[in-house]
């Protein structure tokens, strides 16, 4: 069966510090991978998605970047965090296309202080 791992579960970082959130998927090959952000009182917002190694599509221009160095690994990064980067970050995978259900990780609660 397929599983998705996302870490860390919680993170407190000072403004201006770097960020690296990692997500890995097991039990499937060539999944589509996604990073979503959930801000308080708002729905989930798609940040990045990837349909293959090294292929990244950005939905929202901002202080974050994503990379996919391996087939089942997806990394969310920032060189310098802003207060507005605080939120709940969710990694997800699917077989591709909106008709394919998303399978989410447990999320990372990021607080930028």
């Amino acid at each position, binding site marked *: 069966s397929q599983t998705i791992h996302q870490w860390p579960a919680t993170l407190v970082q000072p403004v201006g510090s770097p960020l690296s959130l990692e997500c890995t998927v097991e039990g499937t090959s060539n999944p*589509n991978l*996604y990073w979503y952000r959930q801000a308080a009182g708002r*729905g*989930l917002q798609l940040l990045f998605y990837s*349909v293959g190694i090294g292929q990244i599509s950005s*939905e929202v221009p901002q202080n974050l970047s994503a990379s996919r160095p391996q087939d089942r690994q997806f990394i969310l990064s920032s060189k310098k965090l802003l207060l507005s980067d605080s939120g709940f970050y969710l990694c997800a995978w699917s077989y591709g*296309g*909106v*008709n394919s259900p998303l399978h989410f990780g447990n999320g990372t609660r990021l607080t930028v202080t």
Partner: protein
Amino acid sequence: AQTVTQSQPEMSVQEAETVTLSCTYDTSESDYYLFWYKQPPSRQMILVIRQEAYKQQNATENRFSVNFQKAAKSFSLKISDSQLGDAAMYFCAYGKGGSEKLVFGKGTKLTVNP
């Protein structure tokens, strides 16, 4: 741009009763999909039910069913025989056919009272 609106920030229901969560969406597309996702307090979000726009028949998954009104662009979720484990945030989502992007509503927090 497509939007998804969930007008009920919070709802409550008595155990064993039925509750309906509302969702409306705005799109000019004819090929699209609609979803309800559930996010329990443990935080892992899971798919509850899916509806293809081209299908007239309402989707059903056990105690969960939808009322899909395409002309009205309405997609409500009905939970029958509510259980304590149904307590969660429920998100309605829209996806245009052929794309990778889901647009989510702000969510409805459902409380189930014993």
